[in-house]
């Protein structure tokens, strides 16, 4: 059952970016309006997921030579951040997990009913917990070194999507559960594109809101099922065929969108809009961060998770540099335990709490200096977007570092997939790097620095927006915070890597 949506009254649509519409590129609108356009992206990714599962379960259990670990921990992560930075949430657009939708509908029919997603879970807290669980498992179980566990992780994602969407309304998995999708949602806030309404006056006169609810169109009205709003084929601008065109599964209505949060880029809205009135608009990467978009959508839970992501990103990288192991040894001696799971838990909890406290302190300090008093909730909701920019910068720098280190290795790894299964191929394992190793650190540091500049710009604009004549004062605590975090990020990137399966002493 779809959730109740409060539709905006006439004329209350929020401002949307008005940059170049990518759908004006030759052929793109026509292609995306095609009913099966999403499958074109999903099927190749499904094939890759099958390779991941097959090689992970049955291939050689050596991470650099297995498709599961290479494609997942190198290519998927690297290409996700590249796509988010230069385009948008491209990976949700091609998400193969959504191909479980038909089996989920079948199971739903077998069950004969649909459950409501518990109200207590209708926030981003669960997503935050699941993201933390994934990052913790990554370190605790050395997922990066285990093709077998990586394959099982992929299977768990498919099973999770199937189960959640079989029991609960479609879109529940994407919005409330999927850690991958919510990573993308959060960081798509810095993406340079957004789905918008081309002309909101057309939306004013649209009573069915098919971008949200979907539509069905047939030349013969008697074929309509009645499940969706019926729009006669003759009324559809640039008609894109007969049939059912589902609306947004995460309950977004195009003219009300102030950002990319929860937008899977599935382009259902592009196909469902009978007036061909949806655009993919180019915008400034800072726009959503300055629009207070999350005030109206998810609020404090989302901002808290997004802030924590900055520190989980740091931890994810720090877990492979020597000082991390030194700290772990010190902690082990201090707590007199060699239990690595416990130590890792303490480290995760400590860094999460410390990070949130430091971020909150910086935000409150800026507010206080700017004369807004001490209101932690208001402060984090105002300045939290700065942490989002910083967080994405470091995730991108880290993932890009690994991607550029070994992106080309996908070729010998794919060859090895077939060699392992008896084909006569001879992989050339010398193929790995995309760029010379001497470029790796400068490239990663430049990415981190670029998003530090974005964070600084967002800081200054927020200060100018909210603090009037005290803007010059209010921005300084946050600017110093940005500087300090960026310096720390660059130091982490500069440290020599050490990849161990345990945090205490040698693994082997």
């Amino acid at each position: 059952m779809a959730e109740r949506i409060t539709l905006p009254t006439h004329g209350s649509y929020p401002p949307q970016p008005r940059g170049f519409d990518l759908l004006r590129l030759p052929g793109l609108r026509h292609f995306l309006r095609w009913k099966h356009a999403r499958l074109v992206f999903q099927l190749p990714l499904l094939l890759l997921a099958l390779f991941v599962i097959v090689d992970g379960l049955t291939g050689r259990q050596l991470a650099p030579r297995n498709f599961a670990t290479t494609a997942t921990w190198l290519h998927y992560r690297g290409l996700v951040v590249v796509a988010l930075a230069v385009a948008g949430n491209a990976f949700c657009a091609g998400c193969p997990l959504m191909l479980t939708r038909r089996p989920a509908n079948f199971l739903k029919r077998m069950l004969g009913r649909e459950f409501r997603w518990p109200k207590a879970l209708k926030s981003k807290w669960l997503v935050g917990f699941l993201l933390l669980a994934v990052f913790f498992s990554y370190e605790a179980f050395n997922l990066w070194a285990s093709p077998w566990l990586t394959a099982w992780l992929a299977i768990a994602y498919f099973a999770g999507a199937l189960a959640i969407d079989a029991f609960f309304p479609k879109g529940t998995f994407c919005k409330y559960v999927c850690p991958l999708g919510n990573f993308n949602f959060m960081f798509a806030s810095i993406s340079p594109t957004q789905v918008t309404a081309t002309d909101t006056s057309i939306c004013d006169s649209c009573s069915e809101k098919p971008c949200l609810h979907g539509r069905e169109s047939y030349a013969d009205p008697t074929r309509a099922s009645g499940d969706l709003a019926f729009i006669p084929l003759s009324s559809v601008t640039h008609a894109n065929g007969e049939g059912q065109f589902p609306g947004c599964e995460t309950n977004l209505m195009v003219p009300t969108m102030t950002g990319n949060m929860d937008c899977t880029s599935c382009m259902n809205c592009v196909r469902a809009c009978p007036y061909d009135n949806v655009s993919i608009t180019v915008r400034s990467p800072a726009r959503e961060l300055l629009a207070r978009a999350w005030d109206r959508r998810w609020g404090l839970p989302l901002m808290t998770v997004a802030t924590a992501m900055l520190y989980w990103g740091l931890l994810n990288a720090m877990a492979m540099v020597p000082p991390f192991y030194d700290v772990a040894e010190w902690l082990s001696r201090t707590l007199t335990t060699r239990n690595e799971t416990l130590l890792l838990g303490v480290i995760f909890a400590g860094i999460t709490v410390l990070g949130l406290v430091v971020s909150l302190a910086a935000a409150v300090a800026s507010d206080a200096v700017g004369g807004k008093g001490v209101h932690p909730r208001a402060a984090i909701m105002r300045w939290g977007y700065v942490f989002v920019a910083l967080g994405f910068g470091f995730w991108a720098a880290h993932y890009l570092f690994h991607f550029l280190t070994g992106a080309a290795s996908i070729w010998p790894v794919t060859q090895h997939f077939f060699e392992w299964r008896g084909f006569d191929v001879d992989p050339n394992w010398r193929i790995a790097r995309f760029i010379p190793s001497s470029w790796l650190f400068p490239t990663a540091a430049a990415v981190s620095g670029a998003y530090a500049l974005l964070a600084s710009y967002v800081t200054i604009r927020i200060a100018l927006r909210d603090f009037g004549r005290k803007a010059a004062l209010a921005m300084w605590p946050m600017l110093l915070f940005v500087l300090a975090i960026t310096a720390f990020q660059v130091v982490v990137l500069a440290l020599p890597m050490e990849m161990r399966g345990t945090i205490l002493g040698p693994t082997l």
Partner: protein
Amino acid sequence: MLRAFLALLVIGTLAACGPSGNQDSESEGASSTAGSVETSNASSVLLRTETATDPVVGPSTVTVFVLNPDGSGVSGATVEVTGDMTHAGMVPVIDTATEVRPGEYATGAFEFTMAGDWILTTDVTLADGTSLTDEVELNVARE
């Protein structure tokens, strides 16, 4: 019901799939390991791959022993040593070992480029064309 049964069957089959080991001989140990495989001519050839005790980041010599069952060395083999880290995408270190004594082959330009967990794969091709592989896991410390 049939579909549900098939789904359970698939899940059960997958669950039974433990991590598959190396199809070749696999060795254990840190600094000195041994493995043996049967060759195609029915004789038994022993492979032993050795590194320095407590290896550290930097140049290192990997020594591979190719031995007959009686302990005598097997000459004329082609030996290649590949070092992989346990993280995907890391550039492997590949070096050819040359024969320094009958049955004893040593690398000349092998280098551990990073601290952490390493897996050495030794690929040996005997004079008669028989291929043998050995795998050694070890931990490399910082300098």
